[in-house]
């Protein structure tokens, strides 16, 4: 039987007698497991949006709480508003710092931040 140059049916028949080597038995189940774990892009976007919403809510709550904390400090209402970070305040209160200790800390911060005038060093000594 003669073949035209572009007729490779004889060769193809010979090659197709052989099947590619078999694959591992667990390959399919591993792919299935990974596919199930794959997060769809829409779910990912929703998760990010939810995370942003939670962060914004938490930040709002922290700021609100901090203002209350500032008001509750009797001795140094003004310096506290001017020099302390509200988040920092709430954090220290949450850690159980006493109001007096907190007050002392804030006073020191305020003093450090006040502009120094010529002659300050003389007054100290």
């Amino acid at each position: 039987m003669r073949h035209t140059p572009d007729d490779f049916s004889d060769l193809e028949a010979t090659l197709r007698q052989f099947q590619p080597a078999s694959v591992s038995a667990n390959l399919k189940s591993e792919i299935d497991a990974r596919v199930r774990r794959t997060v769809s892009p829409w779910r990912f976007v929703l998760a990010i949006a939810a995370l942003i919403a939670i962060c914004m809510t938490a930040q709002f709550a922290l700021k609100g709480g901090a203002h209350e904390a500032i008001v509750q400090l009797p001795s140094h209402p003004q310096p506290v508003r001017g020099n302390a970070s509200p988040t920092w305040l709430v954090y220290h209160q949450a850690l159980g710092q006493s109001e007096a200790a907190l007050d002392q800390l804030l006073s020191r911060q305020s003093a450090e931040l006040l502009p120094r005038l010529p002659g300050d060093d003389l007054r100290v000594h």
Partner: protein
Amino acid sequence: MKDETELQALFDHHARALVLFGKRWAVSQGDAEDLVQDAFVRLWKNRERVNDPAAYLYAAVRTLGLDHWKMRQRRTQREEFVASLRPEALFENRPEQNELRQNIEQAIATLPDEQAEVLILKIWADLTFAQIAEALDVSRNTAASRYRYAAETLRGLLAREVRS
């Protein structure tokens, strides 16, 4: 692609040919299977945008394989890499076909990479030239001519074995 059932059907039909294709760049069967696994996950993630899942899978295995190859070459010296190669049978065969299988594997190994790729995709993946063109990012004519060159070379090398 619609759902996981279709993905499983693709696996049943193409897994072996995909692993055979992946062996062009992988050292071992395990490495080739990892490439195939990654290709299926990639297909699943992009299923909304993929027109031809079969062509996509082979294209993904090729891309991942080339990355794997480059990474491996960076990590190891060439000599170590060649020494680590363990020849594994590409095909299953009956015992009496051992010699023919070895001759076919040797003949394929002599082909230029681009011809061997097309041959595997045409014979064992059973893709059309249009699908091969998509998988390899070449024109249909290029895919067809590469196949013709590969087949002519193989017919010459396997003249004794090929029925005529």
